């Protein structure tokens, strides 16, 4: 069982039964997710990928890899219209060239 405890008007922590504070690095997400949905999400999968995602995001330099977004290949792929577009895009390259650090934020 999870419950959301308001400790002050601006700070919200999620406390487990054992009293451990979890998810303290992303309080916004916890605030917006009701208990019932959180239970379902926890049941579906643990949060491991989120931790990795935070590590990648923190190590990333803004602007790196943006050239990818302006390639024709990427533009054609990310537009959903048109059945002729190929739905899968594989970016391949040697270790360390920056494949993990691409970022795309749809408007």
């Amino acid at each position, binding site marked *: 069982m999870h419950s959301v405890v308001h400790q002050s008007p601006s700070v919200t922590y999620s406390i487990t039964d054992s009293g451990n504070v979890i998810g303290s690095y992303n309080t916004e997400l916890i605030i917006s997710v009701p208990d019932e949905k959180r239970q379902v999400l926890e049941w579906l*999968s643990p949060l491991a990928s989120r931790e990795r*995602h935070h590590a990648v995001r923190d190590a990333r330099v803004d602007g790196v890899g943006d050239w990818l977004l302006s390639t024709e290949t990427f533009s054609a792929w990310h537009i959903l219209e048109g059945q002729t577009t190929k*739905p*899968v895009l594989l970016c391949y*390259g040697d270790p360390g060239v920056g494949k993990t650090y691409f970022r795309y934020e749809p408007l």
Partner: protein
Amino acid sequence: MYCDFSARNVQSTGTVLGSVLRQVVGALAEIPDEVQKAFERAKRQVDGCGLRLPEILELLIKSLSNLKRSFICIDALDEFPLKHRLELWECLQCIVRDCPKTRLFLTGRPHIRDQVQELFDGTAEMLPISPNTHDIELYLNMRLKRDPEFDAMDEGLRADTPRVISDKISGVYVLSQDFES
């Protein structure tokens, strides 16, 4: 979703797609009926409550249909355990086939290129990634700004460092390309 060689003993098709399913359901305003029902069923069972792969796949496809558009990104496919890889790829094929509003973004080392090409049979676009001078300069400038011994370099050296290193790296790359062709 990040595949990770060091997590090869715990990563399976179920954990990868389960994580994607969690993120999709998390993005939806309401939990899809099918997911809610499966959750209720699992709660009633005494022994364990994990979803099996066919159920995860089915719920994922249903949940994706509730999104106007979605992008599934899987990093480092080549680090996903070899013994489960075919299974994962078959599931990805199903998703691509059944979810026209979903796009799949994959990354991996060059040796998986041909496998992905063959597997997705003409539905996959291939993009080679190589060191990019601008990216390297951005990164080096960030590192130089955070240099704990800032006074160890003068302005000239600080300006030359990104330029020289990125030139050398792109030169190495051109050279290796020449060898390949």
